[in-house]
């Protein structure tokens, strides 16, 4: 058995408290999990669970104060700036908000060539690659010379996905990438994620609050509650017959689009809450 692609071992993230002598604010209390190559690990949690922070810790954007994050067996949580930059070839990101994650003053071409040019790729090669990437995310060729504001939310998210794919990463951290989108767009963008994974073998750390989204896209699911992982398992099992009380509560709380089933689910939830 080879080592996992990404491994989190008892990771603690703390933000310094405001003012001197204040206790630091601990967001993650020792989280351990692993992602295999080509796998989607869904990370589910509510606000304040630390799910976004976990993603940011993997990206080097949040301070890891304890434990270790290993990428292909190599510790990466305390890298210098230069080494961290080198890692950007392998680990990429798609953020939640498609409106602030793209620089409004840059054209799509500039946004997409930027990660390539910084590594010394010639401009012509970079532009040729961008045209191919746009194809892959089903955006028209002339999208390249437009500004982000000319696109809808779903289209912007496609641009963000293209940016993440620029340098053939092995892992993409997806931080709620579809929660700002309309239902119909959401389904299409999720299918694009799956299609790309099947074509390239990229792994996803897929952060979301939505159990049905996580079920659709994940191979395995980890449930985060107040900075701790309370349950891990394969997607079907966690989203159908969860073991931990919190996951059960989460599942029963999500309303289903069917009045009769929802009435039963509601009754079940109230019964469990009462007991």
């Amino acid at each position, binding site marked *: 058995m080879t080592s996992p692609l990404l491994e989190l071992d008892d990771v603690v993230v703390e933000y310094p408290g405001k003012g001197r002598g204040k206790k630091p604010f601990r967001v993650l209390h020792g989280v351990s999990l692993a992602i295999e190559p*080509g796998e*989607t690990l869904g990370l589910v949690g*509510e*606000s304040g669970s630390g799910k976004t922070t976990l993603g940011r810790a993997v*990206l*080097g954007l949040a301070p890891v104060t304890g434990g270790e994050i290993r990428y292909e067996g190599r510790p990466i949580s305390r890298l210098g700036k230069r080494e961290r930059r*080198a890692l*950007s*070839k392998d*680990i*990429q*990101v798609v*953020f939640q908000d498609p409106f*602030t994650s*793209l*620089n409004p003053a840059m054209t799509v071409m500039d946004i997409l060539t*930027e*990660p390539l040019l*910084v590594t010394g790729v010639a401009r012509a090669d970079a532009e040729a*690659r961008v045209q191919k*990437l746009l194809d892959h995310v089903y*955006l*028209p060729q*002339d999208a390249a010379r*437009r500004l982000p504001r*000319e696109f809808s*939310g779903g*289209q912007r998210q496609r641009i*963000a996905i293209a*940016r993440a*794919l620029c*340098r*053939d990463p092995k892992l993409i951290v997806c931080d709620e990438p579809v929660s700002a989108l*309309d239902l*119909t767009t959401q*389904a299409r963008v*999720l299918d694009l994620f799956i299609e*790309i994974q099947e*074509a*390239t*073998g990229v792994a996803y750390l897929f952060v979301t609050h939505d159990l*049905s*989204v996580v*079920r659709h*896209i*994940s*191979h395995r699911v980890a449930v985060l509650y107040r900075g701790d992982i309370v349950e891990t398992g*394969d997607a*079907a099992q966690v989203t*159908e017959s969860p073991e931990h009380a919190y996951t059960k509560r989460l599942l*029963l*709380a999500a*309303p*289903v*689009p*069917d*009045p*009769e089933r*929802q009435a039963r689910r509601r009754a079940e*939830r109230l019964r469990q809450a009462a007991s």
Partner: protein
Amino acid sequence: MTAVEFPPAPKRDGLVRRALRDPLAVGCLVVLALLIVASLAAPLLTGYEPDHSVMADTLAPMSGSHPLGGDGVGRDVLSRLLYGGRTSLVGGTLAVLVAFAVGGPLGLISGFYRGWFDAVAGWIVNVIMAVPAIIVMLVVMAAVSQDLNVAMVVLGVIMAPMVFRLIRASVIAVREELYVDAARVSGLGDGRIMRRHVLPVVIAPSLIQATQVFAVAIGIQAGLAFLGLGKASQASWGAMLGDAFTNIYNAPALLVWPGAAMGLTILASSLLGNVVRDALGTAEPRVVRRRKRVERRAAAPVAEAPADRLLTVAGLRVGYPKPGGDKTVVDGVSLTVARGEVLGLVGESGSGKSQTAFSVLGLLPNEAEVTADRMVFDGKDLLGLDLAALNALRGRGIGYIPQEPMSNLDPCFRIGSQLVEPMRKHLGLSRAEARAKALELLARVGIPDPERVFRSYPHQISGGMAQRVLIAGAVSCDPRLLIADEPTTALDVTVQAEVLDLMRSLQQEREMGMILVTHDFGVVADICDRVAVMQKGRIVETAPARQIFAAPEHGYTRMLLDSTLEGGPARGDLRVPDKPLKEVTS
């Protein structure tokens, strides 16, 4: 999946081109250009030295040899005016250069790296800003040099904090943007991020700031010279004003030339900053005049409505005036709500569902143009109501539950007072009665410690609590209709379930009608009796909830329902690919 079609990309004009279209900008530039030309060409335009004084020319009138006459000690006014312009131009430029050379880089570093550097720089800036500028200049001119140019360099340092603050604030704002995080993850170093993402944002406000610093510097320089500071040989508008001031009773006209020159220069410079701001589109937002009432489009007869009818809306249209013609967001919507009925208004973003809900309450922004054929609430015609009549109805007849709990409570007032104020107005309760009723309501919406929450400020309670407080507020004056705009979208699912339970029980207990705006079919299934599906400003289908889910008629409804992921198959286990990974573009 087909590629999306776009209209051709709009032409984007450069900043300079846009600014030059404004006659005011051209005027400002002409004044500043005149200043530069006059300063450079001063020796050509006048034969007199600015500090050459001839006793006989004291307060000389305008003449061929002295076009603007002589001053209080017999110097040529025109010559002093021209050379004074030189002093102003040089002084203003010096101050701008120094202020940006000092404040610019420090602001960039402080904003970008924060930490101890920011703390130290911030402290120094506060020290500098706490001392009145002219007092510092007096000290410096007394201690170091009487040269006005030296003074302007020092003024540049004193004004550097303004530049520092502006640039630091812009950098911090950019730094918080996700696209900077994305650039970092893309492997961009700090230098490149600053060049590509931060600097472009900073340049425009800096330009505007520069015009202001220039104007202020010229003013302060003149003030110092007016006080009699500065070398006697340095002609300046301030010194001219000083001289004119001593002769204010016998030659008040002497004030006119330097005063006008200085006023014009300062105005041109600061108005130019304003024009740049306008051209950038960062101008202060325009304020639209107060709202008009909802207009009746046609004099439609009020048809007999069934006795249990609570709300009737017919032919509602909402449009926003745009440069290229009005943009219609609600296009002929008709709906009804019966007493005690929950109507779900479902649609994707931009479908006009919230706009429809707000128009019933008369809460659309001022610029909205709202018309309708009919809008009747509980037998009362809502069309053409004036503000007072509408206010009597809002809260009392129709309650409103907003989407975002935290931003919908006034942060400056205690929760209690926000609950009490409408009850005192609508129900005429005394302060004590209203307080008792508010506490009762807080307990009713499931708040464990009503007394404490009553005394709290909004920032002291959680989002779920805040939403309960807002629901308590919505029902406080016993309305017959509730309008809830995505009331659970901002909440966690577990909290959402509890809030929906609360809304359902309140609605049933008080037999209120309700319009629930949502995009979530799960929420619809949970609480709605009837559903209206909206697409692009129109209602495409209205039916009882069970029927919508069991047998949707319209294609759009079916498509929406088909996109729900709930109940779909799980993705399944990962099959480890045995073939090597291939490149996405190969």
